[in-house]
């Protein structure tokens, strides 16, 4: 990032700093295509939102036209790959100090080219103050939007779209953030916004909310009264003072009133009987730190108590806190959480939001974009373009004090289709896909971060190789390396930066970074080659299987599924083998497999089930391209089909490592159907299909889908989770060895 002006933190800067050098397009990205703006100007921070489109490359696969050609010709890839430009929608949010506002507006004006925008939605207390400046600089009309409406719209938006948006604060845990899995139904909830005063709003639906109460004792009281008491002018400095103080010097505690007897009475002596009760004397001096701490406790406790009273009255147990008093300050999150726990006796949960600071800007943006109906889409946080949550505790992070002088970013991509839960989940509201929470599990975190670091060189190499015709591939790949490396380092120090850290989120972050530098599918070539090879082997594999007796065949099919799953470029143990031994094939993979009994082995139960009536419809989540899907999954599919079971094959919509993508699966299925009359194809939204066809068997294959995630997922129907553990660390953790087999067949309880 380019240089940026140093600045005091937190205070409302009345004088505009014009001399700073703005960080260039690193901050205001994609401005050239920006078409809709919103701005939220608070007491000290400005949040700018805009909608833009991003052009980026996508890898497409396309069947050759086989007419008049011999499709089975050797050395010919099964399909062609083309890289195309695709335009997708992205929401950009930038947060900076009010002191930079003029410089930022100038920058935006200079870079805004293609916009037809005439209006900017503005919210926040400062919107009025800066109205003229914005209109003059951007030549856009300022439309003022109601602060609370924007806040709530923004809150609904992040709660719906960002997994792990909300967290509880646990002061003595490591890390101190505990993220919540998004409940499919976010309503109703209580939003307590602690700005200069406190607003308590009950949110019942997307558009229905009600101000149910408030309090005048809020952030302004802390700041105003704190400034009077300590002569400290800045909010952040007051918090800093408070974090060093001892409130018991100022407050009258229960033990001060009861003496030592509080213990025998079962009272906690440290409870505050009277805030500032000890300061009612003229002959004592009190330290600034102690007074600030006492004030912080007084205000936090009061807000927590009122929030609990309102929550109780309205029968709500989730309370989200926002506003500048909270804004990621561990000190205030800690005292508020304590208060809520104390007053509700644990019945109400104090929740905080990772993107709390952006709620107003998001809401204002959504207000202005209503005709585009952004709420009908699903949006996903782009890990590559977002800054992530930083701990702003001065003790935890000494460099933090400069943070408010920096720019903070959030980017969200519009997803191709809304994400919904699989209808077959037993309890969608309690579904947590990820098996291990790396935020909690420090040992696993360390291992996986190192693992991803070590794999980075290989990914970079693969990325360059995937675009042989590109002149700048090496340069972009290097940028990718730096970006992903720095993300990994951030996560080492702040595992909570993007919500719960999981193997899945590490993979997602890598995909986002690859896409950022236009490597849409680094494994496209590898997959193409492997699909070609596997397709050629398919008829032989089928012939062999068909020659077996029924019971033998069932085991061979399952072994095939497992052996196919060995071919995974994402697993370091395997990619080493594949790199060094190009001849390594399906049969070699079978040899690597663990002998039965497997690490998790319910094969006998599965075989018994197969002797019974056929399943109505099986939903299979396939893993890798090539041998895995073609020689492992398809023969299995074929067997099910011949039993009279319908099969839905579900694949990734976009590329991830060498996972088979939806597009590739279509081509593969088409090619197999051409060879084998048993296979047909269907193309429809998965959830709809699953419901229509009454799926009663779910097969989940591969480490990523069946071990790192979903291992504990309970389904309403029978399920088969199988994987080969291609990672010795994980195998050891699970009590097995490299290439141990997981074969988990489950039947839901009646």
């Amino acid at each position, binding site marked *: 990032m380019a240089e940026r002006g140093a600045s005091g933190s937190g205070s409302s800067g009345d004088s505009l700093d014009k001399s700073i050098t703005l960080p260039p397009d690193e901050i205001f990205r994609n401005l050239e295509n920006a078409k809709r703006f919103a701005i939220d100007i608070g007491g000290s921070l400005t949040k700018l939102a805009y909608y833009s489109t991003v052009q980026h490359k996508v890898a497409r696969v396309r069947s050759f036209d086989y007419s008049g050609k011999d499709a089975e010709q050797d050395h010919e890839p099964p399909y062609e790959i083309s890289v195309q430009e695709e335009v997708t929608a992205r929401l950009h949010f930038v947060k900076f100090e009010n002191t930079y506002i003029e410089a930022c507006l100038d920058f935006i004006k200079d870079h805004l080219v293609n916009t037809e925008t005439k209006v900017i939605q503005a919210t926040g207390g400062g919107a009025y103050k800066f109205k003229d400046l914005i209109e003059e600089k951007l030549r856009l009309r300022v439309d003022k939007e109601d602060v609370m409406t924007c806040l709530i719209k923004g809150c609904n938006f992040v709660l719906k779209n960002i997994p792990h948006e909300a967290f509880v604060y646990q002061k003595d845990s490591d890390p101190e953030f505990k993220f919540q899995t998004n409940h499919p139904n976010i309503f109703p909830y209580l939003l307590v916004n602690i700005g200069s*005063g406190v607003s308590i709003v009950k949110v019942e639906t997307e558009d229905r909310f009600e101000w149910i109460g408030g309090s*005048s004792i809020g952030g*302004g009281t802390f700041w105003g009264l704190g400034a009077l008491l300590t002569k400290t002018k800045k909010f952040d400095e007051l918090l800093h003072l408070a974090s060093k103080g001892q409130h018991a010097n100022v407050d009258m505690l229960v033990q001060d009133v009861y003496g030592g007897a509080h213990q025998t009475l079962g009272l906690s002596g440290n409870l505050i009987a009277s805030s500032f*009760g000890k300061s*009612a004397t*003229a002959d004592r001096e009190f330290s600034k730190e102690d007074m600030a701490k006492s004030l912080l406790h007084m205000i936090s406790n009061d807000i927590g108590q009122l929030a609990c009273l309102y929550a109780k009255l309205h029968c709500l147990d989730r309370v989200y806190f926002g506003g500048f008093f909270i804004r990621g300050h561990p000190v205030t999150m800690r005292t508020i959480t304590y208060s809520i726990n104390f007053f509700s006796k644990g019945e109400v949960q104090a929740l905080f939001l990772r993107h709390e600071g952006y709620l107003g800007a998001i809401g204002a943006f959504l207000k202005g974009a209503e005709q585009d109906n952004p709420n009908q889409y699903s949006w996903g946080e782009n890990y590559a373009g977002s800054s992530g949550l930083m701990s702003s505790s001065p003790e935890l992070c000494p460099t933090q004090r400069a943070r408010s002088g920096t720019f903070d970013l959030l980017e969200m991509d519009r997803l191709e289709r809304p994400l919904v839960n699989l209808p077959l989940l037993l309890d969608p509201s309690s579904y947590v896909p990820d098996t291990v929470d790396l935020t909690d599990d420090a040992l696993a975190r360390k291992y996986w971060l190192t693992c991803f670091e070590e794999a980075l060189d290989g990914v970079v190499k693969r990325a360059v190789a995937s675009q042989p015709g590109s002149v700048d591939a090496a340069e972009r790949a290097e940028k990718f390396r730096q970006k992903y490396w720095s993300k990994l380092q951030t996560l080492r120090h702040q595992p909570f930066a993007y919500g719960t850290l999981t193997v899945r989120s590490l993979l997602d972050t890598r995909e986002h970074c690859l896409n950022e530098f236009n490597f849409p599918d680094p494994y496209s070539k590898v997959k193409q080659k492997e699909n070609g090879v596997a397709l050629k082997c398919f008829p032989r594999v089928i012939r062999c299987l068909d020659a077996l007796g029924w019971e033998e065949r069932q085991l061979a099919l399952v072994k095939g599924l497992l052996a196919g799953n060995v071919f995974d470029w994402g697993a370091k143990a395997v990619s080493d083998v594949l790199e060094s031994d190009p001849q390594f094939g399906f049969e070699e993979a079978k040899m690597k497999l663990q002998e039965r009994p497997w690490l998790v082995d319910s094969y006998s139960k599965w075989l018994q089930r197969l002797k019974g009536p056929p399943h109505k419809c099986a939903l299979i989540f396939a893993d890798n391209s090539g041998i895995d899907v073609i020689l492992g999954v398809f023969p299995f599919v074929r067997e099910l089909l011949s039993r009279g079971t319908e099969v839905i094959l579900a694949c990734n919509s976009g590329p991830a490592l060498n996972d088979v993508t939806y597009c590739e699966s279509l081509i593969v299925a088409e090619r197999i159907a051409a060879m084998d009359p048993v296979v047909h194809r269907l193309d429809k939204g998965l959830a709809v299909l699953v419901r229509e066809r009454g799926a009663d068997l779910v097969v989940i294959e591969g480490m990523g889908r069946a071990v790192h995630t979903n291992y504990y997922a309970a389904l309403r129907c029978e399920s088969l989770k199988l994987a080969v553990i291609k990672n010795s660390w994980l195998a050891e953790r699970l009590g097995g060895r490299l290439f141990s087999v997981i074969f988990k067949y489950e039947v839901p309880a009646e």
Partner: protein
Amino acid sequence: MGAGRLGMATERHGRAADASASSAGEPAPGGPGGRRRELLRRRASSASEPPVGASAEGVRRSRPGSYSGAPSVSRQRVESLRKKRQLFPWFGLDIGGTLVKLVYFEPKDITAEEEEEEVESLKSIRKYLTSNVAYGSTGIRDVHLELKDLTLCGRKGNLHFIRFPTHDMPAFIQMGRDKNFSSLHTVFCATGGGAYKFEQDFLTIGDLQLCKLDELDCLVKGILYIDSVGFNGRSQCYYFENPADAEKCQKLPFDLKNPYPLLLVNIGSGVSILAVYSKDNYKRVTGTSLGGGTFFGLCCLLTGCTTFEEALEMASRGDSTKVDKLVRDIYGGDYERFGLPGWAVASSFGNMMSKEKREAVSKEDLARAMLITITNNIGSIARMCALNENINQVVFVGNFLRINTIAMRLLAYALDYWSKGQLKALFSEHEGYFGAVGALLELLKIP
């Protein structure tokens, strides 16, 4: 209320025996113009107190609580016992975080015979307490609250209300020692946190065993009792009509004939909120540490004032709107989206975020804002509790309300306004003394 039942351990009464003969004669303090004793003074040293008679030695011989020895019982005391009546003096003590509240029953129906038999120390206590309105530099008798011609346990007399700061408790205990309280072998019923905190001091310094009582029990008992006896023919309970209007505001008596359910908000240094459903059925709903101690403590820090009275006096002359940020300061008027009136405080002390405004406010403005902040907050919490408990009459008591019409009117107005007339704020003349009264009732075993 008739005579109470007697449930005290007889030993205690019994031990009073020979004390009557040996108690020291404490010279009664002079009249208003006479010699004022430093009864309740900070860091009172015994040197400043007239020495207690030598007989004190003999009196403290058997201290309450150690029930050893076979005490001989005087006739008079036996008489009193037979009548199932607690021995004089009758005190109720409530030792709070800031103030000690003491109620004293002065019997007015003492017969000549009784008078003659009355021990000197008892007499001297009575004279001392009833003939003064101030004790030492900080002890005060709230003469205007005195309940006259009260019948308690078959005795007629006046109930006196006395208060002094808790930090003078050591001086009080010292006085008890000097005045030979232990020789009276009286039971000292005390409530409040200080009953625990100072229990050991009472014992070791004053040779007095405290009978510690639950403060909420006492509070509830006290308020119900005092309401039932009225205020010298007037109503104990009152409310404000047109509280927001300086001209039309009227304090009117309220007949608490249907007291239950009742939300009881006791504002001392901190605040306790109780839901009272019947005489014996109540619960503590919640409490807050933002109470009278917070108002006074912060006023001391912000204005340099030294007494509660001074703080209130300053507040009465200040303008809180210079300190607080009102809804209209932010929205230019009412915030209609949320139905908030422009005059409502949006942020207490919110204007003090600005340096210019900090420099423009007076101490009086700050004191006023502090008063408004604390009072509004208590009102707000009380209102929420009333809603949660489904109670619509709220009685505010506690010494924060003493001579504090601003706070009372504000509570009355805020409760009425925010509840749209559903809640009624009630007040009681004896504000902060209910705990002490409750302790006295416990002493007399009045149910």
